[in-house]
């Protein structure tokens, strides 16, 4: 048996005697694991909530009829009932709404036909309450809520629920409360306002149209040909789709976003791994005499090797369990931030609770233990190869370490070359990009000890001339203990570089988005219909009044909507441009003039970068869109930059849109103003021009401000993760410094005995940590810049399809350097205090 209980007991007592070392190592693993767990739990909870809602909302639906810019005409439902024998079908009107009032709670308005529902969503529970059900159908402006949603909104049956629909206040009477029987039903009814279909149409001012028709086709592959008959029946602007793939595609929209956060979490774990490496190798160095004794007594190398790995596994297990607990708590905090981003950028999701998935917990547990084991392999090899002599001197170890230095540095260079190869690997996707990122991080980490030795050589003469012998002594101390300090510097460098890299990326992104907004928002004032979806439009009369308003020079008219394409939904903008509007779109493909000409005259479309990159569409290629005339290909005349959605945007002229979609609706007006016009006064005149129609009227500056707010909110979660990585690195450097302090106890005691004051010793210890922080910070700068370059040019492009201008703000690099220095100096305070205050007599006696 490789494991010997007494050896295990000996290890346990060793760590019990060094509680800070034990505690900091546990904390390092726990924090690393907690970040990864939290990110994954939060993103999975959000996705799961969405899937549960979809599942609950879809019920037993297998297919749906969707499409049409205004929705599906109601008559399609009637024809379906009349022509296709018996087929379960349920009409649905659905729209996101908000409560009217300060809280503005997001809700989903779901208009259903209660009589058609039981076959689809029996759980809505209406059938069991006949009288109330009848009220829902017979009395207009009545609604049902789940008991929990009602409780949250403070409503009871008979109360009034006030909604803000497209700027109008709409009041609904609560006719009944639904009591969900299962978690699925509860999730499905969460924040849903259930009404009769006619009430929903009234509220949304969309009489005669349905959002979709749900169907149950029990035998789609059967010989009855139901699907073919359905296809023949539905109008050309509509489409029959299967529900499963459609829901999955929506849930997949956040994949790149989730993956990026997960990788940031992994980076935190990598920093945590440095900590384990540091702690384990220190414990091996400190126990070199003990290990020597065990070897003399007949313990084999294998037994020593497994002993160290076993210790790491125990650390990993304990740290991972602690990490899971912290992670679950942290996930609760991240969930809000994540849901906010998903709601801002992707789809509507209501999620308030983290669902603890055993699979994720198990994976995190394995990650913690695996990470600890990987980090402990080198220290375990070092321990196993310790010769069975009794006093392998520390300087001998450092000498061996220095001999290995060229090899370690060469390993670093090799990893950097691997990183380059992974970036340029033909056809390498996001996986290759992240592999390159991690190769780069580890490559730099291996270069850190060598760089530190070089830095010490360069700094030594300067220190000696400035601070004399004591300063020189402090500096030499750092270099002499390279085996410990090297790892601490590497850990701090990785954390600081990750922070700097992400900061530069976010800054570049922010600048690009800001420039893009500045360019795109050409008009002075924008008027748009409130709410989302394809339903709303501004009346032609209103447009005419706006055009005639005093101070208005020109208008651009736009219709933003979601269209069906061959590969699923795409965002589209149909626009009738003012002369000035053309400059608002930056065409990044060649020959912009040709592109605009084709756009205006040949029914061609422009696509945004994400579509081009993801679908591999080049200029001259085509996108197939579902028009009122059926699925038709449109020629792509150019590719333009757009950050409004990572799903991609198809831009077409309004003339093209009208001729293929037969829809003249307008959702946005860009108002260009005559020189010298007072914007505030014009705004009042425009409000008057809008008349009864509730429109959002904003100037370009406030839209830009609002957009940047959303941008910053999106990156809040990134900042939280960055901060956690720095905390882990801080724990790492504290642990390394404590280790060095323990190692050098005797040396410092001798210095005290020779007459150095406490203040001088404190100064030496702090100077040493300061130098560590400075070197780590300096090394972090090139790595940070390279990481940001990789994030901007490779990861973002492959994740979201966005290109952006790469900008390095020197202030951000200065911040990173200051962060490194401060972290090191702060972490050094306690060890320095211990060094200065420990009695030299005690230390010398102990030795």
């Amino acid at each position: 048996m490789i494991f010997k209980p007494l050896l295990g007991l000996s290890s346990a007592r060793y760590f019990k005697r060094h509680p800070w070392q034990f505690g900091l190592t546990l904390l390092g693993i726990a924090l690393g694991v907690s970040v990864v767990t939290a990110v994954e739990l939060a993103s999975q909870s959000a996705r799961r909530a969405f899937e549960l809602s979809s599942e609950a909302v879809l019920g037993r639906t297998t297919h749906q009829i969707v499409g049409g810019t205004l929705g599906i005409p109601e008559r399609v439902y009637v024809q379906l009932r009349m022509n296709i024998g018996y087929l379960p079908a349920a009409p649905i009107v659905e729209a996101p709404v908000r409560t009217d009032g300060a809280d503005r709670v997001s809700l989903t308005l779901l208009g259903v036909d209660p009589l058609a529902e039981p076959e689809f969503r029996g759980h809505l529970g209406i059938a069991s309450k006949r009288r109330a059900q009848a009220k829902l159908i017979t009395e207009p402006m009545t609604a049902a809520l789940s008991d929990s949603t009602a409780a949250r909104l403070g409503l009871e049956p008979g109360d009034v629920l006030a909604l803000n629909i497209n700027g109008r206040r709409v009041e609904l009477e609560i006719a009944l409360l639904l009591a969900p029987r299962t978690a699925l039903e509860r999730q499905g009814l969460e924040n849903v306002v259930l009404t009769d279909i006619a009430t929903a149409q009234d509220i949304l001012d969309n009489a005669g149209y349905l959002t979709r028709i749900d169907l149950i086709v029990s035998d789609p592959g059967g010989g009855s040909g139901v699907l073919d008959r359905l296809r023949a029946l539905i109008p050309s602007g509509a489409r029959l789709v299967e529900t499963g793939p459609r829901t999955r595609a929506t849930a997949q929209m956040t994949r790149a976003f989730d993956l990026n956060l997960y990788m940031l979490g992994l980076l935190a774990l990598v920093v945590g791994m440095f900590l384990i490496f540091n702690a384990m190798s220190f414990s091996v160095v400190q126990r070199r005499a003990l290990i020597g004794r065990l070897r003399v007594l007949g313990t084999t190398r294998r037994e020593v090797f497994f002993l160290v790995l076993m210790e790491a596994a125990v650390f990993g297990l304990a740290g991972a369990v602690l990490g899971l607990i912290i992670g679950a708590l942290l996930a609760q905090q991240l969930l809000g931030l994540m849901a906010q981003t998903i709601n801002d950028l992707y789809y509507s999701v209501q999620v308030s609770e983290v669902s603890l998935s055993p699979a994720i917990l198990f994976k995190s547990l394995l990650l913690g233990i695996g990470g600890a084991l990987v980090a402990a392999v080198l220290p375990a090899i070092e321990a196993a190869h310790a010769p069975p002599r009794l006093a392998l001197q520390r300087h001998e170890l450092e000498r061996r370490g220095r001999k290995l230095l060229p090899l370690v540095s060469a390993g670093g260079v090799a990893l950097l070359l691997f990183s380059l190869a992974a970036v340029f690997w033909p056809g390498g996707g996001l996986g290759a990009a992240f592999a390159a990122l991690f190769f780069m991080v580890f490559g730099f980490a291996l270069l850190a000890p060598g760089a530190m030795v070089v830095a010490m050589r360069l700094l030594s003469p300067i220190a000696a001339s400035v601070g004399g012998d004591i300063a020189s002594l402090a500096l030499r101390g750092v270099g002499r203990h390279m085996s410990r300090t090297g790892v601490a510097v590497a850990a701090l460098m990785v954390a600081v570089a990750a922070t700097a890299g992400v900061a530069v990326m976010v800054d570049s992104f922010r600048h690009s988005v800001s420039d893009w907004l500045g360019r795109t928002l050409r008009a002075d004032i924008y008027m748009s219909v409130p709410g989302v979806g394809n339903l709303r439009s501004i009346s032609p009369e209103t447009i005419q009044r706006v055009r005639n308003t005093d101070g208005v020079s020109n208008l651009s008219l736009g219709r933003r909507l979601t269209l069906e394409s061959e590969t699923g939904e795409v965002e589209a903008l149909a626009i009738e441009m003012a002369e000035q509007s053309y400059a608002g779109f930056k065409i990044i493909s060649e020959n912009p003039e040709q592109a605009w000409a084709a756009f205006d005259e040949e029914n061609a479309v422009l696509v945004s970068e994400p579509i081009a990159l993801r679908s591999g569409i080049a200029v001259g290629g085509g996108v197939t869109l579902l028009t009122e005339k059926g699925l038709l290909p449109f020629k792509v005349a150019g590719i333009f930059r757009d950050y409004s959605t990572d799903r991609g945007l198809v831009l077409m002229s309004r003339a093209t849109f009208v001729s293929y979609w037969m829809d003249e609706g307008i959702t946005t007006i860009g108002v260009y103003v005559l020189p010298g016009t007072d914007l505030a006064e014009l705004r009042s005149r425009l409000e008057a021009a809008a008349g009864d129609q509730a429109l959002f009227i904003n100037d370009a500056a406030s839209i830009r401000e609002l957009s940047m707010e959303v941008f910053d909110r999106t990156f809040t979660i990134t900042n939280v993760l960055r901060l956690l990585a720095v905390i882990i690195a801080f724990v790492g450097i504290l642990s390394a410094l404590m280790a060095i302090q323990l190692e050098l106890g005797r040396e410092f005691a001798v210095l005290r005995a020779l007459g150095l004051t406490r203040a001088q010793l404190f100064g030496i210890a702090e100077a040493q940590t300061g130098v560590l922080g400075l070197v780590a910070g300096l090394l972090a700068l090139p790595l940070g810049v390279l990481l940001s370059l990789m994030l901007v040019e490779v990861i973002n492009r492959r994740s979201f399809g966005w290109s952006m201008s790469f900008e390095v703000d020197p202030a951000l690099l200065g911040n990173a350097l200051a962060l490194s220095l401060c972290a090191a100096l702060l972490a050094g305070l306690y060890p320095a205090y211990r060094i200065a205050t420990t009695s030299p007599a005690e230390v010398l006696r102990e030795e």
Partner: protein
Amino acid sequence: MGKALKETALIELRGISKTYREGDARRIIFDRLDARFDKGEFVCITGRSGTGKSTLLNLISGIDLPDQGEIHLDGEDMARLSDRERTLVRRRRIGFVFQFFNLIPTLTVEENLRLPLELNAKQGDEWEKRVAMLLDRVALADRASSAPENLSGGEQQRVAIARALVHRPDILLADEPTGNLDQETGRKVLELLASMTRETGATLLMATHSSEATAYADRVMRIRDGQLEPAPDRA
């Protein structure tokens, strides 16, 4: 007395050479050294500091390897064995006593005694009794649960002797076992070491500077100029 216990050669060194690098120079420790030690013998190895007393013990135990030559333990050449095989020989057949005791600080007195038994998978009542007997023999039964750091030097060395003998090794190697003790304590430790080794019938090789120690030995050998030769006063 020593001749009476002597049976056949247990340890035989043939043509052993060993040098160490000291900066750019090479220092010769042994130059084609030959020696043999018989079963049950108590041999003291003397010599000035740095002549290679500890190196000789390290070579015999397989901790170190000769540059040249053969080291036979019961006919098996240690120099030809792998590190693992040498470790297993050391684990089963050799006990060590050091100048600085070298107890495992994270194990109690009793656990230190149990460690060689655990490494050799020797368990059961017989061995439990042996641990108790040895603790009793070295007069530390009442300190069984103490940590080594709470014992005096003499007590620690007594634990080390009990630990070296607990698994009934054939060979006991003692490297300056009294070098870190006062004269009175040293004498008691020597008496204990000699008597306990003789009780077990093991071969005891002791590297020492102590002239008092040589009085207990069957033979006294001296290392000089890379060779092992009988010490002049006991030749």
